[in-house]
């Protein structure tokens, strides 16, 4: 087994896509070969560089797509609804189950993105009119009439300052929407100027500790920037520095942690220097420890 072979498979090794045997070979070789360990670090750096090269759809583009999809689904549901009504009036038995897909489309079309929480310039005064009415169920009556069950979906728009309690509460809820990282990111951005509120600060801390999305965690760090000296924030940043798998997030965490030169972070920095692989972060930690006249390791 040559260094050349090891280096050719390092990328697949990082992706975790080598066979068990090959992975064992790589592990064994890396233990004894310093130059291949260095090659692995370069491979890691290459992967990190590629991480940042993906195109990210803008929120505006995603919003346009959702609007278009809503319209397409509405047209489709109208077509299906018309067919369903034809079947009903033609005297053939129509099971409600057959109408369910059309109902699903109708509601999706009408309310799919209608309940978004982003404030707009619309006045909030009157309850909004129904934005969609859809036949959910049709039943011919013996009298010759028809029984119609409708589904109605309403869209509601709110306008207000994120400093106002009801609006802030909605944005805080949106900041925890597990299905949409974009919405969480936008919510934290809107809440950023209001980090003096304990509820908002807790939202940032929660996102920093547990949001699965690195972009959202970065946004949370931005929101906590003015509170770096707060023990709870410092503790959360320490956990991030020692355990977050994203280099960008760890970089932001170390920058904020060392801003205050607090002796309370020395132990954390000493732990970080032992496990950190990223060169920039290591140097930053070393520099901070030197400036605080602290030793490089914990003894």
């Amino acid at each position: 087994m040559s260094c050349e072979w090891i280096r050719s498979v390092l990328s697949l090794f990082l992706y975790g896509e080598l066979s068990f045997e090959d992975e064992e070979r790589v592990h064994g070789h890396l233990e004894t070969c310093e130059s291949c360990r260095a090659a692995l670090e370069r491979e890691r750096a290459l992967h990190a560089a590629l991480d940042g090269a993906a195109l990210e759809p803008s929120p505006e583009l995603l919003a346009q797509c959702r609007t278009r999809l809503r319209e397409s689904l509405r047209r489709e549901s109208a077509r299906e609804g018309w067919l369903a009504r034809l079947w009903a009036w033609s005297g053939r038995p129509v099971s409600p189950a057959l109408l369910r897909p059309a109902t699903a489309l109708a509601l999706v079309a009408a309310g799919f993105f209608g309940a978004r929480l982003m404030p707009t310039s619309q006045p909030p005064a009157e309850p909004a009119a129904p934005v969609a009415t859809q036949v959910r169920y049709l039943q011919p009556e013996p009298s010759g009439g028809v029984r119609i069950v409708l589904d109605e979906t309403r869209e509601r728009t709110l306008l207000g300052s994120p400093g106002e309690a009801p609006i802030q509460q909605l944005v805080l809820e949106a900041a925890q929407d597990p299905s949409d990282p974009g919405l969480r990111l936008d919510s934290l951005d809107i809440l950023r100027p209001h980090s003096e509120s304990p509820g908002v600060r807790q939202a940032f801390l929660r996102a920093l500790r547990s949001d699965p999305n690195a972009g959202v965690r970065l946004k949370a760090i931005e929101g906590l920037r003015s509170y770096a000296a707060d023990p709870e924030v410092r503790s959360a940043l320490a956990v991030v520095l020692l355990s977050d798998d994203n280099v960008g997030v760890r970089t932001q965490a170390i920058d904020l942690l060392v801003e205050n030169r607090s002796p309370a972070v020395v132990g954390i920095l000493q732990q970080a220097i032992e496990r950190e692989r990223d060169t920039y972060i290591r140097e930053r930690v070393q520099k901070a420890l030197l400036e605080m006249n602290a030793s490089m390791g914990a003894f």
Partner: protein
Amino acid sequence: MVTEAVLEGQISSAPAVDETALIRAAQQGDQRAFEDLVRAYDRAVLRLAMNLLRSPEDAQDVYQEAFLRAYRNLPSFRLEASFQTWLYRIVTNLCLDHLRRRKVRREERFTTGSPEAPVNQVENLREERADVDPQRRLLSKELGGRIRQVLDGLTARERTVFELRHYHGLRLKDIGETLGTSEEAAKNCLFRVTQKMRLALGDFV
């Protein structure tokens, strides 16, 4: 929530709740379940289409068509299969169709001698997103340019495999299934891509 569409890095393929229950409900006409499924995946779908096609307009078309097809064919979806793989197969097939049509158009333009205007939509998109992506700001322009060059030089299939593995976190087995090929073929394809990347970018990192 079904799965997390991750802005940076990878898309988690592990469902956070019982995805099967959601799909079953959507198949039976539960609009909330269908809504959850779409919302869980739509950002990732758009991102996949945009990175494969490098054109926001084409990506929008693929987004529309993919979800309409998913809706129409949901009743025939087998619950034992992976919904993500099934949806991604729809998206990648649509993207590959787009790329094939684009290639034909390019060849037609070439044979008739009309110039192809270079449209750098990709560059514009990067700038739009720069404010919400501190990591990207750290990338040097030169390195970013070189990466784009390499990505543009990949074949459609290579780019698809790389995109699905690197940015969406799909296992090679699932990528093979998505593209209608074997895991081994997907692995060879990824291996080729990583060799090209290392060759072109090795001196930058």
